[in-house]
């Protein structure tokens, strides 16, 4: 198991490096780069100084290595400084946003809690809804519950989140006025009233994301459960005279959860991408909104960093899914 984990870990490093190179070069070679946006009235020698000050006259690979160093050494060191009061990153150049003129990670640190509250609860609720629905519709295949469940899952999976979001706003905040349509980031939960307010404003975005994820996961759960229900070991278990409850909830459930757990882990990065849209619809001030804002403001360091963070998330959760698969299914480990 250890060698398996180590091999996966080592494989993740070149992947991450390559992705970082792709992102860096893509942004660096693009025609819309800020070097071309220095006004023409600026005298040439001043322009030269500006470019030198930004380090843009260095060769590409040096800038790439410097960026990597900032990302993997200076920023974590700064984080550790913040926690323990050490001074590892003192005097080091951090990644500076061109919008706010402050370190990119300060902005990200401010934005991440909102994203995590909304997305985390949405994903948890989605999984909690999806599993029982998927299991029950597989167990009673072709029943009316299954028919309804698969139809709703198909609809939830097909209707884009930006439309469900807008639809819910029109119904529940414009017509009925039950929930606010805009997420208030400055709200602090201190007492019961503000907690209720927080729940109310989270209701719509969480519903949208949870429905979408529940649709996808319940489809997988159902398919995986169906595969296992027709296996020989199920017949054996029944023939031994085990109760139906034990057969379904112990034997079949454990075996059919193997692919579902990996799907749940693999789905986490894509839900962050989905959050970009939902945050835009409900005006949640999270990292998705930060990315869109940075793109519109041509703030390249912020864009580079956020895109790379999304990439790190994907690689990380792929790794977690791989390792989980290895833990749950020993056959995988001996390849």
């Amino acid at each position: 198991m250890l060698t398996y984990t180590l091999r996966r870990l080592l494989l993740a490093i070149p992947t991450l490096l390559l992705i970082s190179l792709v992102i860096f070069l893509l942004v660096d070679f693009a025609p819309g780069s800020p070097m071309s946006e220095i006004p023409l009235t600026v005298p040439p020698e001043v322009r030269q100084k500006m470019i030198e000050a930004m380090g843009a006259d260095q060769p590409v690979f040096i800038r790439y290595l410097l960026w990597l160093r900032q990302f993997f050494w200076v920023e974590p060191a700064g984080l550790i400084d913040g926690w323990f009061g050490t001074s590892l990153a003192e005097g080091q150049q951090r990644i500076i946003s061109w919008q706010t003129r402050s370190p990119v990670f300060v902005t990200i640190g401010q934005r991440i809690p909102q994203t995590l509250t909304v997305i985390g609860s949405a994903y948890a609720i989605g999984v909690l809804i999806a599993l029982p629905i998927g299991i029950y519709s597989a167990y009673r295949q072709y029943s009316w519950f299954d028919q309804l469940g698969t139809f709703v899952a198909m609809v939830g999976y097909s209707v884009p989140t930006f439309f469900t979001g807008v639809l819910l706003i029109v119904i529940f905040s414009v017509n009925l006025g039950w929930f606010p349509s805009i997420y208030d980031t400055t709200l602090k939960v201190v007492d019961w009233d503000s907690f209720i307010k927080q729940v109310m404003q989270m209701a719509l975005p969480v519903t949208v994301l949870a429905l979408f994820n529940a649709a996808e996961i319940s489809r997988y759960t159902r398919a995986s459960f169906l595969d296992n229900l027709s296996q020989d070991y199920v017949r054996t278990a029944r023939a031994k005279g085990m109760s139906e409850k034990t057969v379904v909830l112990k034997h079949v459930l454990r075996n059919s959860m193997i692919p579902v757990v990996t799907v749940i882990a693999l789905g986490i990065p894509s839900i962050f991408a989905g959050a970009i849209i939902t945050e835009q619809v409900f005006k949640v001030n999270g990292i998705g909104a930060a990315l869109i804002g940075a793109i519109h403001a041509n703030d390249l360091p912020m864009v580079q960093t956020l895109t790379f963070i999304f990439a790190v998330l994907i690689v990380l959760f792929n790794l977690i899914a791989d390792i989980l698969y290895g833990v749950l299914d020993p056959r995988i480990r001996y390849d």
Partner: protein
Amino acid sequence: MTDTTVIEKPRSFSRDVWDQFRTHKGAMAGLIVLATLILFVVVGPFIWRIDPTFVEPDAAKMIMSRNKPPTWAHPLGTDQLGRDMLARMMAGGKVSLAVGTVAMLISIFIGTFIGVMAGYFKRLDGTLMRMTDLFLALPLLPLLLVLMMLFGDRIRALLGPEAGTFLLIVFAIGVTSWMHSARIVRGQVLALKEREFVMAAKSIGTPSRRVILRHILPNVVSPIMVAATLGIAGAIITESVLSFLGLGFPPDFPTWGRLLYDGVEYMQLYPQRVMWPGLAISLTVLSVNYIGDGLRDALDPRIRGR
């Protein structure tokens, strides 16, 4: 006495597939809905002849014609500049469906090419599959947004706002969505390569190019078709997401995603302006997904004929 037993006619493959496909209710409903939508988008503009970009040149008239509720003259009402929503829905649908189809073709072409190369030539397999894994690990939506931001203006200046955006979006979606079809095709090719008919073709000295084109490709058409159908749905959603985030088509060039984006601003007063494009996107994607499901069942020999 003449023998009266009638020998059953030999059944063709496509007939078998169609018979199985017909039993899938969702897929049939999807096919009907999609056909209706395509008719609406393609034939509609010949019947409903209002120009979707027509704005009343007279300012007073223009203000009078804005934000109209549905009437006989404008069955879906008008937008904030007095443009006819029905005509805009037709024009937008044409672009959305075109983007979906072309992007799907690009992605299937790349995917099939890489899948066949990786499956057929053992030397390329490792490199190409690592590349596929790398692409799968890329954060696609953020990268698409970055692509649109960085290259949008340059390409628009080069090719004009409409053709430029269209090419950029189609190309960007195609390049970022070929991975699944490449994996499916590679798996199929790996299995096919060991079959007797391929070995026979190789043993009489058929060059690789002809083995691939004559013997391998016709046998991977089924999974490619399923991937293609689902690819259209994905491409349409991606295009509308880009338009919805304001990084897709320019405002005077409607797509369903763009119409939805424009409608969000007026959502509180005129909710129907969000409903129609959203409904159109959702119906298209839903029906395409159902057709994909039905096709998968119909093309799967284990399910067909049961």
